[in-house]
């Protein structure tokens, strides 16, 4: 398997305070696989994700190499980078409730994004969106397109982001804690959609999560971050069965209770799937 994305010596720091947030990260994303990034709050997971998309605040500086299909994303111009965003690299953010412009209809926003990347007419866009929304089990998609974000639930908005990703067909999806803001039931549903997304698109994924139970379900490989540094990496199985770093051991033991609860909610089929 070849790596689709290769990050080398990524360093991120705050130019105002000179505080180094991520000293030197190196990792790869294998084509078609899912890489999970776990770690405590403030360990630099979101900053790393945004650095790949070059979307950090202008006060944050970054150096290093981010190789994606023969190009170093870190040296691309803003314009070239913009063409990659959405179409090739898709970010799904944590809080669906605040991810959409509150005074813009969902359908209007989707159309705005899609006309940016495709030469589609209004009808074609509508069709594609509705198909994608149906595939993530959103009911009455054409009605949802005529709603404002505040009229929908967090789980629905999260699924709309996934639907948009399905239409955009990116090569890499970066999901920054996509299930953290949801209740357990919606978490389960959204997670199922992520699994399906990988199956249908065959895309690679970077999946940030606090929840090791979730990570176990979806990831092939795991990175564990602590204070900006990667303290452990390996296949999901290896990391869960035999955590080497003491911090990972701590995470695995404390998250056990949570993941058990999660399994309980996922009931029969999830338990079966695990076997």
């Amino acid at each position, binding site marked *: 398997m070849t790596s689709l994305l290769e990050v080398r010596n990524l360093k991120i720091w705050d130019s105002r305070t000179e505080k180094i947030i991520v000293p030197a990260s190196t990792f790869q994303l294998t084509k078609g696989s899912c890489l999970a990034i776990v770690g405590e709050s403030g360990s630099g997971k979101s900053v790393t994700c945004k650095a790949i998309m070059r979307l950090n605040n202008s006060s944050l500086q970054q150096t290093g190499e981010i190789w994606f299909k023969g190009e170093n994303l870190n040296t691309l111009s803003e314009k070239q980078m913009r063409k990659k*965003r959405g179409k090739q690299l898709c970010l799904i953010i944590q809080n669906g409730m605040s991810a959409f412009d509150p005074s813009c209809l969902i359908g209007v926003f989707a159309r705005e994004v899609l006309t940016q990347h495709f030469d589609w007419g209004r009808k074609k866009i509508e069709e594609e969106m509705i198909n994608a929304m149906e595939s993530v089990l959103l009911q009455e998609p054409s009605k949802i397109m005529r709603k*404002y974000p505040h009229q929908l639930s967090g789980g629905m908005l999260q699924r709309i982001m996934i639907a948009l990703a399905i239409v955009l067909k990116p090569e890499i999806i970066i999901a920054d804690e996509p299930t953290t803001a949801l209740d357990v039931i919606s978490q389960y549903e959204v997670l199922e959609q992520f699994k399906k997304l990988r199956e249908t698109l065959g895309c690679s994924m970077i999946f940030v999560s606090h929840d090791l139970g979730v990570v176990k379900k979806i990831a092939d490989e795991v990175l564990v971050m602590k204070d900006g540094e990667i303290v452990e990496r390996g296949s999901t199985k290896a990391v869960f069965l035999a955590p080497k770093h003491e911090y990972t051991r701590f995470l695995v033991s404390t998250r056990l209770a949570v993941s058990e609860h999660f399994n309980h909610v996922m009931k029969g089929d999830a338990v079966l799937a695990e076997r």
Partner: protein
Amino acid sequence: MAIYMINRILLAIPMLLVVSFLTFILINLSPLDPAEVVLQAQGVPVITSELLAQTRQELGMDKPFLMQYVDWIIACLQFDFGHSYVTGQPVWSLLAPAFVNTLKLTVISSFVIIILSVLLGVLCALNEGKLLDQSLRGISFFLTSMPSYWLAALMVWYFSVKLDLLPTSGMGSLQHYILPVIIITVSYSGIYFRVVRSSMLNNLHQDYVLYSRACGLPERRIILHIVRNSLQVSVSVFCMAVPIILGSTVVIENVFAWPGLGSLSVRAILGRDFPIIQAYVLILAAAFVLFNALSDIINAWMNPKLRNDL
């Protein structure tokens, strides 16, 4: 939405009543006896107590206080604000033309202020922390903190006296508007441009901006989204700007001899012409109440969250 609008307008009525009552009380708290003022103004040489009593009766001041208020408010509703103590003319005939003149100045100034504040606010927010932002904020702080009468005098001296470009006072041609509008704009844009700027900045750091960027939307389109959301917040502030400017023209009108409400009220205060003062305060208070209601309605109409809940 329609129900909300009706409710909001109905709510303005008791507010107007309270405000008018307060106006009435405040004016009547004055230690001066209106009857005495009237007689003095008419140049009566010797003011006897019979004469005073007779005048009081003419003015309806022998009635109980509440009755006086009711009489006054009913008359006001018919645009009858009584007669000037000084000239004996109906207050309405003095007030109406002055009100129109002030309104012209206010509307034009508000318009200029709003356009300028939005432009500068957006410009500064997009260049946050850069030289442009810092210098514009510095200049606006400097201009806002200057007393407007002083600024007015300075500009009249320079543009009208020294360069002889613009008229010093009065109103007539369009040129008469230039200096007063500039001075009102300079004194007030600073405040409103800050409102726009901070609400832009607030929006700039929202998640939806990050997500829109992540979707590959060009920066221009994203800015349009941000501006729309920021203006929603600013609209109510802008609405309240109109009555504030309406009330603040007193200073400017006196500097430029603008025949408006401001000049009229100052003359009325000096001449202790109570009916005019009362009417002036009432008009201003009513403007505040009405624009307050208007700003709530516009806000509800622009904000889909509110629009649907109502």
